[in-house]
């Protein structure tokens, strides 16, 4: 029998398991296996190997699910508590911003009055006012970035 027939049979034996073959190919393979002992042995060995692979059983460690469920429960409590504190934190920032916006005209007048009293240049006053606005935002951004890094590290 020519070698290429055996090669085709060998390829079909694998392909049938991996991605399936056409009905005509299956018929050809069955006919070939009836007449070729070597390929029939190979097909049998392959099917046995896959059968054993499917049949292998592994004992689970004792209470694996229970221990995992407990760890997951602890972690979810931790997440919930972090989320609560996160909401509190962002709520405080939101409130401080709202108050900042509402009180901005008064604060600016206060800065102006103090500046005139102390003879501070207008540019310096504007910079101080900008800082008064910018520092809380920078702190908020810093906390947010730290928190993000902490989550990513986990």
């Amino acid at each position, binding site marked *: 029998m020519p070698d290429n027939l055996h090669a085709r049979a060998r390829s079909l034996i694998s392909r049938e398991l*991996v991605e399936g073959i056409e009905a005509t190919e299956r018929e050809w393979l069955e006919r070939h296996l009836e007449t070729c002992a070597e390929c029939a042995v190979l097909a049998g060995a392959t099917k046995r*190997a896959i059968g*054993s692979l*499917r049949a292998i059983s*592994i004992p*689970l460690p004792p209470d694996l699910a229970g221990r*995992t*469920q407990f760890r997951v429960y602890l972690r*979810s409590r931790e997440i919930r508590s972090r989320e609560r504190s996160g909401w509190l934190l962002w709520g405080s920032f939101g409130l401080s911003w709202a108050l900042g916006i509402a009180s901005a005209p008064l604060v600016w007048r206060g800065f102006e009055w103090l500046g005139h009293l102390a003879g501070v240049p207008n540019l310096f006053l504007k910079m101080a006012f900008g800082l008064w606005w910018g520092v809380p935002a920078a702190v908020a951004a810093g906390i947010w970035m730290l928190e993000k890094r902490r989550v990513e590290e986990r």
Partner: protein
Amino acid sequence: MATLIMSFSAMMAGDTKALAAGLRRRDPELLDLLIEQYQYRLFRYLLYLTGSRETAEDLFQETWIRVLDRGHQYDGKAKFETWLFAIARHLVIDLQRRKKPESLDSLAAPEMISAEPSPLERFSKRESETNLQESLGRLPAVYREVLLLRFQEDLALEEIAAVLDAPVSTVKSRLYRGLEMLRQEMGEVGRAG
């Protein structure tokens, strides 16, 4: 109780969208059910990949912690187990990277499960299983992995590709090569026995 019944029926019906919604909510009852339902398959997958029962146990727990943390990333388009195995696989790769920082493709390392006696050997009774385990243990992890996903987990080629984050063509070629190697190994183990 109502949530539990809903979660359970969603799981049974393979309703991945409902699962995704539950994971986004971090529904504790749903997670408990999923851990119960997938414990065997996930542990087996990790055990075959790592070759160590202790490591597999640690990674099993880590996988579920990650499912909790990143549940919002599961969109319900693919099967849950595909996503679950992909998470577990990433954890194995991360662990290997920490052990061998110079080797990024460490899953290919054949010594990965031969570093200690195969846990499968310890528990198996049947001779054919032992032969198979020996043969599997000798295969490089990349081939062993696809064989397990295809023939133990019965995942489709596209699903295996999603777990591996690799093209279907790569999955196919690894499967063919893995089958060939397994046949050879089993033949040698059989002859040696």
